[in-house]
């Protein structure tokens, strides 16, 4: 049952007056902690938060109960507003993804952006690969690009919304090579993969974990990886740079933030906790199983990198002809 915000705020205000005197006592949460996510139950963000809860419990890093609160809607806008509403509550943490950076650029309605919140840490980067059907004539990314140049607009890529990484990488590649191919948006990963496997589109950008089994069964072929360095499981697949395309795809990240006035003690606590988490065995196992990249960046450095990413995204959107409202 949710506690009343007013009593919480009053208690915190009282405690806050003691902070200057308690500089030696490290803050620890004493009330249940809430992780706010921007998807419904079962969405990517929700599952990550639940996995984090399990791991934090396993590693005994947090002494209180943790609960995942779903605030879906508006591509992260509703969740961002929910986190901001918590003002200085140290027991609230928001789980963000790159969607929180892209969303505000196109949605005027979104009043609160991730930059109004306190950055805690970046946790992960999500790599991706370019995949085609195993029976397609393209053996390398170059083959595909050449074919696209020869038949502009005829080849098709399936992917998520027009502001997603899938499309941004495509736009960057198109600008770098002068090739043009169509982009078809599907809201769900399952549909995108089905479209590729069924021969309705020619290529897609997919997370390595989703593609793994179909590659193993010989239905898909991976052309290149969208990451800076080669992933351990895909050691013989070239990265974009190695394939000859010097583009820096905007990274797809996952991280944690706190409410705008979260006290410094709490921010410090959470940074340390997540730092310990990312060094733990269960985290390493999780990252390996899900084929992600561990990329821990905390506090101000995190904020700077988000600002950089946001700037790059904005440039890409403008180049792609997407209407930006900020």
């Amino acid at each position, binding site marked *: 049952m949710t506690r009343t915000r007013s009593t919480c705020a009053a208690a915190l205000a009282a405690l806050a007056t003691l902070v200057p005197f308690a500089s030696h006592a490290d803050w620890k949460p004493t009330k249940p902690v809430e992780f706010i996510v921007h998807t419904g*139950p*079962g969405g990517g963000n929700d599952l990550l938060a639940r996995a984090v809860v399990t791991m934090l419990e396993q590693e005994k890093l947090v002494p209180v109960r943790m609960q995942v609160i779903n605030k879906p809607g508006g591509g992260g806008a509703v969740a961002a507003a929910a986190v901001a509403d918590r003002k200085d509550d140290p027991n609230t943490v928001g789980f963000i993804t790159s969607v929180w950076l892209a969303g505000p650029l*196109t949605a*005027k309605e979104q009043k609160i952006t991730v930059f109004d919140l306190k950055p805690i840490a970046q946790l992960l980067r999500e790599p991706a690969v370019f995949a085609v059907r195993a029976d397609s004539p393209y053996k390398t990314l170059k083959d595909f690009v050449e074919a696209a140049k020869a038949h502009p607009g*005829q080849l098709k890529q399936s992917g998520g919304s*027009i502001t997603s990484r899938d499309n941004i990488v495509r736009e960057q590649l198109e600008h770098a090579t002068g090739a043009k191919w169509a982009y078809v948006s599907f809201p*769900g990963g399952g549909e995108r993969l*089905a479209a590729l496997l069924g021969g309705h589109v020619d290529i897609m950008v997919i997370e390595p974990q989703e593609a793994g089994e*179909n590659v193993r069964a010989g239905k898909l072929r991976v052309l290149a990886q969208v990451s800076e360095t080669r992933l351990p499981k895909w050691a013989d697949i070239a990265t974009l740079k190695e394939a000859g395309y010097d583009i820096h795809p905007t990274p797809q990240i996952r991280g944690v933030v706190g409410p705008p006035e979260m006290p410094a003690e709490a921010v410090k606590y959470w940074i340390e906790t997540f730092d310990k988490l990312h060094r733990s065995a269960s985290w390493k196992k999780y990252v390996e*199983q899900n084929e992600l990249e561990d990329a821990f960046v905390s506090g101000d450095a995190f904020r700077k990198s988000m600002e950089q990413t946001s700037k790059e995204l904005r440039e890409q959107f403008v180049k792609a002809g997407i209407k930006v409202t900020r």
Partner: protein
Amino acid sequence: MDILTGLMHGFQVATTPLSLGMCMLGVVLGTVIGVLPGLGPPATIAMLLPLTMKLDPTGAMIMLAGIYYGAKYGGSTTSILLNVPGESSSVVTCIDGYQMARKGRAGPALGMAAIASFIAGTFGVVALMLVAPALAQVSLAFSSPEYFALMVMGLAMVVLLAGDSLVKALLSMLVGLWISGIGSDLFTATSRFTFGSVQLLGGIEFILVAIGVFAVGEVLANIEPQDPPKMLPVPKGIRNLLPTWDDMKRCRFAFVNGSVVGFIIGVLPGAGATIASFISYGIEKAVSRHPEEFGKGAIEGVAAPEGSNNAETGGALVPLLTLGIPGSGTTAILLAALTLWGFKPGPLFIHDQPQLFWGLVASMYIGNVVLLILNLPLVALFAQLLRVPAYVLQPLILGVSIVGVYAADASMFQLGLLALFGLVGYAMRKLDFPTAPLVLGLVLGDPMERALRQSLMMSQGHLSILLRPIPATLLVFAALLLAVPLFRKVNAIRVQVLEREEA
């Protein structure tokens, strides 16, 4: 391994005490969740995921699957008794199920829902077992043009749901289409009809509109007269509480309809149980000898959609277990669960993990039987709910509606929307606008628009992509569906003219 060996192996796995226990737990939990609006399988399974880490994967999968199809059994309960859809896919059941309850036939309605769910659910498992890999390959041929044709066929059902005034039904549907488009456009990130509100960026949830228009609207309508019309008393005796043989005979086709339509649509990743229930309802009405009874308490109108939403579970597992493609919210979480346990669903899954696949299939047979045995006596229990006076039921329905909406999305804004749609539902009833087409438009509008735009993107603007074999067939079918009532009307006029001539 071939099917018979696999199945025997599967039953061995599924009948161990642990597996049976997990199956029971899953189906009971599923039924409870289905009964309660607002709580659905995705949320529950997500919450249980950490617990499942400590269990044996096969057992855990059996339990989670039990929750999935168990919820489909329970979803019809509040739909029939209170006109509050327990699950998105149970919305269609409200249409005839609630009317049956008002006529004192709540028991047969609930019983038929359970029976149809059992028949179709079992069909779904059998089909999963027999044709999974082959069907998965065939289903890949289905893409945006085919989905578009399917949605058009679905919308053609409006004609069948029209009742007296086709113009009003179409207007209702158009409003539904409009509401469906509220939010951020997938292809261009443009905000449409969001009135500047961040809460509307993600669109309006379908179940919220359904609960508002159906449940809250109905309460408001019922509260009008000082002395509310009493619902016909629930008859006593088990015989009167279950469907009669006549009922079962009438529903013969509905069982087949629900099973096949539900399973096939379940296999398609882009279409879900709600669409399946609408289409099977439409088909049932189209081929019925007494179509005018639909909407007023036709038992086939309960059997067909309830069957199809259960067969859909079997169908949805096909792309999940043979291609690693999740077709719906629940299968997406099941995929996450399987990945968490270290399995990777894909083309090699059945081959690599036979005990998991066959164990699951066998336990689904068992689970469906358990659910039937569990639900039939519950019919008697639940039907008693209707003996409560109207003035107790009305706050109950309003309370359940609030909790249902708030549990899905905890925001006062959503509750405000619920109140708004309640008023809309009341106004529609008052002004004699049929409510089912609104819901239909809402369910199909956005997917249909997406499918059309995706198709045209694939074909670079050539509409001819819609003339591929499957879409063409479906579009012709849609045209036929539209033609049937027209034909009937023409026939009726012809008969009238003949009678006048003879007189």
